[in-house]
């Protein structure tokens, strides 16, 4: 795990450098579209003191100065499938965003939606024997967490301390400076397929960009579309994407579980395409124009021309009723939601104090989805749109951009991860000068 620690630290350094330069790009490589936002950081607020929470929850420190989306190619299930194609698509998006921003970006923060995420809850404890908790203790207790064997072909994407407990007091956000005997921590670790990450990393590198951060798409869309009390009391964010559906559960402003269902809007489209025997592009068009999940009597009479290109008059003048279209879409959407339900049940979502479910992502725009979802997932379902951030163009404020917007928040103020804390002293190389300095610091 050491090299991951180092690579994540390197990414943090890169992010710091990008902040210093003031420009960083956000890249959401999805299955159906690639979104690129260019952020400009102007530092902390200029006209107000930075005490407490600033205006707009501290997001006024950055501004979106460039935004571009392009049709994604070569991505399946949120993973890079055809690298050349993906690279070209990334290049298109980045170039358009750069052109709009009129500035060159070198650092990019990306998110992955697929790559089979897997959540682990870890806990560790440390005997501090009546001393004051120092930062070193915190990193030590996190290092003491017993990490499960998650497989050699996987990498840790997030490892966030979710909770600290000191003796019998739990729920501490920051135990530093407090005095106790037994410090325990709960940590949430998310691992993903290393190969998928490697491929994305390689694609971004081929575009002359440096990766300054990597996040799970489910996590960042939860950050952008859940409101504060939902994050605090417990809520699940369901990001219905093109090729995969992300699920993330938040509690006490921390993500405690994330998973992804490898099904999404493109599967609905391919169902329509197969069921009606029409090209994918037409299927996508009629899905977005006429799609739905709840059929009414009116829908039987609404006929949709589905066309064709064969030259056969009968074939090219086919029509379907909207009810038929809904009849194709609904089972697939139900299947996706049921799969989500399974994941939520596995995570123990029903034990949370509040069981709010927020649907976001491009797939959440299907009319009637909230009604269907409340039947499958539970009563408290709402459709979520991402938070408004400064300078975001009108075209990019829809739910399809919730993970891109979440990435901007992630770029502006990332949560503390395991690697943001000091390396515990016993992990330094044995004869390191740093270790000697540290010993001096601790003892004098």
């Amino acid at each position, binding site marked *: 795990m050491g090299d991951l620690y180092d690579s994540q630290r390197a990414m943090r350094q890169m992010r710091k450098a990008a902040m210093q330069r003031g420009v960083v790009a956000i890249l959401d490589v999805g299955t159906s579209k690639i979104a690129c936002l260019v952020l400009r950081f102007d530092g902390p607020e200029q006209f107000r003191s930075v005490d407490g929470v600033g205006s707009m929850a501290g997001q006024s420190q950055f501004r979106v100065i460039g935004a571009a989306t*392009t049709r994604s190619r070569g991505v399946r299930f949120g993973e890079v499938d055809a690298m050349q194609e993906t690279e*070209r*698509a990334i*290049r*298109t998006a*980045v*170039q358009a965003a*750069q*052109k709009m921003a*009129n*500035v*060159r970006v070198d650092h990019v923060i990306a998110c992955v939606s697929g790559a089979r995420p897997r959540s682990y809850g870890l806990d560790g404890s440390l005997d501090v024997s009546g001393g004051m908790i120092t930062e070193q203790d915190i990193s030590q207790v996190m290092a003491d967490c017993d990490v499960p064997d998650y497989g050699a072909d996987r990498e840790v994407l997030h490892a966030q301390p979710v909770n600290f407990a000191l003796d019998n007091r739990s729920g501490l956000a920051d135990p530093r400076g407090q005095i106790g005997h037994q410090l325990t921590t709960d940590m949430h670790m998310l691992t993903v397929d290393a190969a998928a990450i490697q491929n994305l990393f390689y694609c971004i590198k081929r*575009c*002359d960009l440096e990766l300054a951060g990597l996040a799970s798409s489910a996590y960042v869309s939860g950050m952008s579309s859940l409101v504060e009390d939902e994050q605090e009391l417990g809520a699940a964010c369901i990001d219905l994407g093109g090729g995969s559906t992300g699920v993330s559960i938040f509690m006490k402003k921390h993500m405690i579980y994330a998973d992804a269902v490898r099904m999404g809007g493109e599967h609905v489209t391919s169902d329509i395409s197969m069921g009606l025997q029409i090209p994918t592009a037409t299927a996508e068009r009629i899905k977005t124009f006429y799609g739905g999940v709840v059929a009414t009597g009116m829908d039987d009479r609404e006929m949709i021309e589905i066309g064709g*290109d*064969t*030259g056969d008059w009968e074939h090219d003048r086919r029509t379907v009723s909207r009810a038929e279209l809904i009849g194709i879409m609904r089972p697939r959407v139900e299947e996706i939601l049921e799969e989500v339900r399974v994941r939520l049940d596995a995570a123990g979502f029903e034990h949370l104090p509040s069981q709010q479910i927020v649907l976001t992502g491009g797939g959440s725009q299907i009319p009637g989805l909230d009604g269907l979802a409340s039947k499958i997932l539970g009563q408290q379902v709402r459709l979520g749109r991402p938070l408004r951030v400064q300078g975001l163009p009108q075209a990019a404020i829809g739910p399809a951009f919730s993970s891109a917007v979440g990435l901007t928040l992630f770029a502006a103020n990332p949560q503390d991860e395991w690697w943001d804390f000091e390396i515990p002293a016993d992990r330094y190389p044995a004869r390191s000068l740093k270790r000697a300095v540290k010993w001096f610091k601790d003892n004098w």
Partner: protein
Amino acid sequence: MRSLIRRRKAADAPHDPAPSRLGYRYQRLLLTPGFRVFVRVGVPIILIAIIATSWFSHEENRAMLQARIDDARQGFQTRPQFMVQSMAITGTDAALETEVAAVLPMVFPVSSFDLDLEALRKQVEDLQAVKSARVKVGEAGALQVAVNPRVPVALWRDGTILRLIDAEGIQSGTVIARSDRLDLPLIAGDGAEQNIVEALALHAGAGPLRDRVRGLVRMGERRWDIVLDRDQRILLPGEDPVAAFDRIIALNEAQDMLKRDVVVVDMRNANRPTLRMNEEAALALRRVNETIPNNGANE
């Protein structure tokens, strides 16, 4: 028969919006701030520098440019506004004027840019008779030379030549005969020209003897002799000669001393004025003393 099935042509295929790798890099390069500044500022400067250098590297181009510049300068400097037409010398008499005019060799008209007024002033001031001078290009294109001539205060006999000398001891010309400048005192002797002020003070203090004073002679570069007519001579001390001269004048007023047969009045020792009579007077006195032995005793 015409095909019923409409085939898709290559042009109908969806356009690939992706930039080529090269195009992408090129655009990123153009968005680099340093490169933008270089293109906007550096490239024009370099281009101009290259063009200018290649143009100047030809000898005939340089010569042409130089000729152009010279022409333009010439044309500007020879405008009638800048031409000096005449010369006016003020503040001096005719003799000095010709002298001054001789050292300023001028061919009029001449452009005022070609005149080195400072050098002209130096030239004029180098003349002995000129104390200082001001040279300017005045109105109506006239070169005005204002000369401040040296005022001679004494005549200095240097061998057979009579020189005019001013208060600072600087000679400003010669005269042929003493009678040319009877108003000036005559001084002579080694180092006389360095003590003009003292000589003038003595001359001014001559009072009733003024008509009889022939001149002042500096003796041994330390004291003055006043030479009167009838070959009489007053030997003054080195220190405070004016007071000694005043005593002589007083004696002369009281006893007409200098009308008598005195050759030398020696005041070198102020406490003991000494007279030397001429030979005849001395003989006569001796004769009287022999005939009237008690003459002096009776008085």
